[in-house]
């Protein structure tokens, strides 16, 4: 019985499952539509909450039509809706009406990472003093490994994904968008510091460096990776950004362990 009911919730033909009755003999379709509306609108609203810039880029009507398609094809598999939207960027990428906005899927990817960062596990960042002690120990430095915050993510994009996102964080969005070259490749560092998720534009070398650290490479190997990607990468500045973003939550090296 629930199978028919569930199938009709996501159907588009207005049918309702068999076996429904109404005390006054009214049409069950109209009453069943309340459930269908609750389900679809509720899930579309959940996506709209998680992907506000994606919505602004295409307009509310377009976004909701696109989100309805996604909801019908990919209903949530868990009652924990906070992270609903896995796979939405991939759906957007293959959604023909959105083909004119090649950067849209990456903006959606960035927004999903922002949500994941917001709800990720807590961890206490190391202090400047911890890092200073390590930097002073030149012999141990290359072998050191950093534990990065569970709320840290790196996204590399062939589009100006951070600029697009940032341009929608203020009232003067239209102005900032006017001069934007969306074909400029960008990378994003997403990290939560205390209660706020920060999104930072980083270069390709920094992205390679942080990704290598995240995969447990030591500093020497991560630096090599970064320099291969971008010979001009500024690793001191990248470490400074990680510290400022509260992204380093542990330092280990052969002789000492912090904290």
């Amino acid at each position, binding site marked *: 019985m*629930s199978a028919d009911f569930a199938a009709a919730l996501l159907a588009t033909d207005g049918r309702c499952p068999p076996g429904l009755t109404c005390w006054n003999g009214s049409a069950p379709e109209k009453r069943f539509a309340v459930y269908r509306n609750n389900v679809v609108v509720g899930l579309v609203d959940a996506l709209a909450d998680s992907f506000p810039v994606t919505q602004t880029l295409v307009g509310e009507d377009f976004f909701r039509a696109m989100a309805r398609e996604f909801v019908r094809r990919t209903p949530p598999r868990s*009652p*924990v809706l906070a992270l609903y939207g896995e796979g939405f960027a991939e759906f957007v990428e293959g959604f023909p009406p959105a083909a004119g906005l090649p950067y849209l899927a990456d903006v959606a990817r960035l927004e999903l990472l922002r949500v994941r960062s917001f709800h990720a596990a*807590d961890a206490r960042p190391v202090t400047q003093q911890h890092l200073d002690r390590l930097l002073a120990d030149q012999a141990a430095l290359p072998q050191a490994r950093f534990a990065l915050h569970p709320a840290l993510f790196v996204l590399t994009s062939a589009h100006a994904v951070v600029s697009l996102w940032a341009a929608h964080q203020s009232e003067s969005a239209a102005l900032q968008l006017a001069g934007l070259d969306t074909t400029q490749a960008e990378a994003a560092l997403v990290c939560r510091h205390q209660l706020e998720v920060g999104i930072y534009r980083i270069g390709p070398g920094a992205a390679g460096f942080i990704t290598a650290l995240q995969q447990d490479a030591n500093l020497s190997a991560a630096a090599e990776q970064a320099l291969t990607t971008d010979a001009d990468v500024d690793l001191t500045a990248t470490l400074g950004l990680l510290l400022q973003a509260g992204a380093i939550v542990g330092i280990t090296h052969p002789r000492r362990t912090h904290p």
Partner: protein
Amino acid sequence: MIPRDTPARRATAARPRSLPARAGIGLKPEHFRAILQTRPDLGFVEIHAENYMVAGGPFHHWLTRIRERYPLSIHGVGLSIGGEDPLDETHLDRLAALLDRYQPESFSEHLAWSSHGGNFYNDLLPVAYDKTTLARVCEHIDRIQERLGRRMLLENPATYVEFAASTLSEAEFISEVVRRCDCGLLLDVNNVHVSCTNHGRDARDFLASLPLAAVGQIHLAGFASEVDSLGAPLLIDSHGAPVAEVVWALYRHALDRIGPTPTLIERDNDIPALPVLLAEAHHADRILEGLLPVVAESAVS
């Protein structure tokens, strides 16, 4: 290590673990800061369990601080107790961890289903009131109470359709569940009004046929009004409006029968500023105070 002596811990140790017979409000992220800054006089706050089933971040930060200062009700919306699927044990584990972390005075869930075939539909969907469903609902509630190690409250639903397969009335079904599982009842007075209107029943007769002795909490909310295909009223449990006068009247009628009961003002859509919700909670508190026997009032003054 000696546990920190927070107000919540003192409360846990000093009194029975139950909500006070006062008004509370649903806790919304929009109001986290305002509640901590203004410390309104509230009986309790209630959260939706699933919203806090995340690893860390601001939601836990704020809830931890608010929970230290207020009694807490945790209200699940995702166990799918009426579902044909087996209970989602992973979800039950998440719920047990949440209850363990926040030690709420009350836990409640719905007589409804929300998952089928592994998909989650994010709505409280209706069940047929027949013997098969009754057995399944009871089996699920038994398992939940066993896993959580506590008694739960089951909420009566707001429904828009009924099933030809039903052989019991809603009140008979609920009474039988409460009797077999020894669970409590979360009496949603708005749902009573909505369902009775939608199915042509008398709300006071319906209330009288519920197992009112088992009521551990009351929910009040607003509804939206539509009409069915014949033009008869079709009320939607929207949680997006103030409590209607007709529901306040039914609330007074219910309290006359069951006495002072913890009462939640539920608002999940079109959420107003905190003072608006507090005014509704204050209104419920005044009604609850009106129930106090005269002797208690003179003893206070």
